[in-house]
């Protein structure tokens, strides 16, 4: 079994989950409570990775972080190396690719918190941000956990984006899914079936636990995968 690739996948999934927790919570909060009339545009953008082929998404990400783009040049100037075909570049892509899997459960959980609890908190003199930490977040915990687990599981299984952005550098960007693909290409069915079975069991376990945790957030989930 390609333990190096498993380790890369695990690190990538975990890092993606953490970044999505930090980035996704404010986005989801905004989506749940904003009354901006053009909000649907942001919602559509967040949901895009659900329908776009990973190659299309990967292609655009590659262009935007490549050495010819302003972002790419900025990163290259700051870190001395570019983002494409690095673990960090892969992380950026994974975060974007798994964004809806975190943001949508977060947002569904936030908006299912009884509005009157929020108003009660405000009337008691507690600021909006403190209300979020003391009321909204604790009552959304299961939705937040669901979003984190889903983004972890989704990153674990990603393939197209990895190929486009990460390439296939052992120990850096070669993930378990890419490793399976390589094994099959090399007609090493033994290695491929072991790794596939592992991925299947891990994914199933994660999803089963998630379903058992929270059905109501799942019910508000607009897309399956």
């Amino acid at each position: 079994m390609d333990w190096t690739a498993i380790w890369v996948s695990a690190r990538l999934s975990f890092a993606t989950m953490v970044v999505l927790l930090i980035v996704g919570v404010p986005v989801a909060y905004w989506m749940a409570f904003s009354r901006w009339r053009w909000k649907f545009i942001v919602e559509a953008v967040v949901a895009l990775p659900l329908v776009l082929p990973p190659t299309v998404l990967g292609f655009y990400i590659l262009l935007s972080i490549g050495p010819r783009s302003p972002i790419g040049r900025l990163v290259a100037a700051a870190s001395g190396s570019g983002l494409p075909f690095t673990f960090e570049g892969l992380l950026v892509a994974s975060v974007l690719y798994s964004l809806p899997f975190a943001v949508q459960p977060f947002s569904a959980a936030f908006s299912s918190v009884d509005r009157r609890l929020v108003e009660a908190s405000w009337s008691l003199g507690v600021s909006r941000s403190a209300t979020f930490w003391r009321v909204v977040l604790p009552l959304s915990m299961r939705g937040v956990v669901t979003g984190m687990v889903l983004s972890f599981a989704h990153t674990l299984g990603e393939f197209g984006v990895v190929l486009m952005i990460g390439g296939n550098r052992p120990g850096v960007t070669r993930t378990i899914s890419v490793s399976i693909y390589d094994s099959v290409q090399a007609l090493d069915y033994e290695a491929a079936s072991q790794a596939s079975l592992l991925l299947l069991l891990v994914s199933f376990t994660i999803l089963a636990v998630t379903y058992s945790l929270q059905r109501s957030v799942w019910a508000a989930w607009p897309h399956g995968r």
Partner: protein
Amino acid sequence: MGDDLIVDVEMRFPAGFVIQAALRTSIERGGVLVLFGPSGSGKTTLIRAIAGLERPARGTIACGAETWFDAARSVFLEPQRRRVGYVFQDTALFPHLTVRRNIEYGIGRLQPRVRAGRVEEMLEMVESSDLAERHPRQLSGGQAQRVALGRALAPRPRLLLLDEPFAALDAPARVRMRRMLRSAVDRLAIPSVLVTHDRNEAIALGDQMAVLAEGRIRQVGPVLEVLRRPADLVVARSVGIESVVPAEIERVDQGLVDLRVGGTTLRAVEVELDRDTRQVFACIRAEDVTIERSPASNASARNHLPGRITSIESDGPIERVIVDCGFPLAALITRHAREELALHEGASVVAAIKATAVHLVPKA
């Protein structure tokens, strides 16, 4: 000018319904203002605007020297800074916090020792000390509403707003809650605005009463004044035409109650009164009062009150007769009956009321 609550706002609803409410009431010495109106009249929206949870389209809201809202000057004070206590109809207790943490929620800025003392004081005041470690889902409706009151009062708000807080409670819990609320706001001297469509609640709890109907505040005044002298037909229709008089229970005997009212005695049927209730309001619907020229010898009505007619108002085929029989009593009779009995102002009559028609509301 003392401390006044001034509300003069226009609020629009998506369906085209508009409220234009103007209201001014003194809050200097506490007291309960009842905001009364039929369901759907916009009472809740109005107190939400006072709390800062809704933004009116136009107008001003001021509390004492502070301007809370002024559309013309784009002033909108956040709900956090208005220092109001808000009690929701369905309690809105934080489900993930214990009763103690719920009460503590709004007083995080106090010093720990002061805070702990305040929590104990509130628990005691709302008779919930034994519930302190429970979660809201382990409470009955009445218990939860008591805790919600304690939570709203803990930060010592300058104004307490209550949105039909007793609507979901059964009758005994409701009477108990009313009494607790009254004694709490009196003890803390916190002026309160209570939204209700329940006349008994207005009578039991209110000092002042504002009637909201058809999108406007129709009348503001002492509760009994408003009930006795509705300013117009809309108010009369929404409060009901009824005589309400303070009374004292003299004797309870086999389910019948003797009341001391004005200079006379009334007999009523006992309903859901506590053993120690003495002060009540006697409510008599004008439709239930019969006018006789002389006492009928064998009538079933238990109350025959001699008096003098002080006024007769005509409303189509129906006439509203006020009889002074130690207290002002309204009766509705047909024009035909008035003519047959030759009733006129100053005439001596006897007002007959069945004991079952005298409805008692314990004073909170």
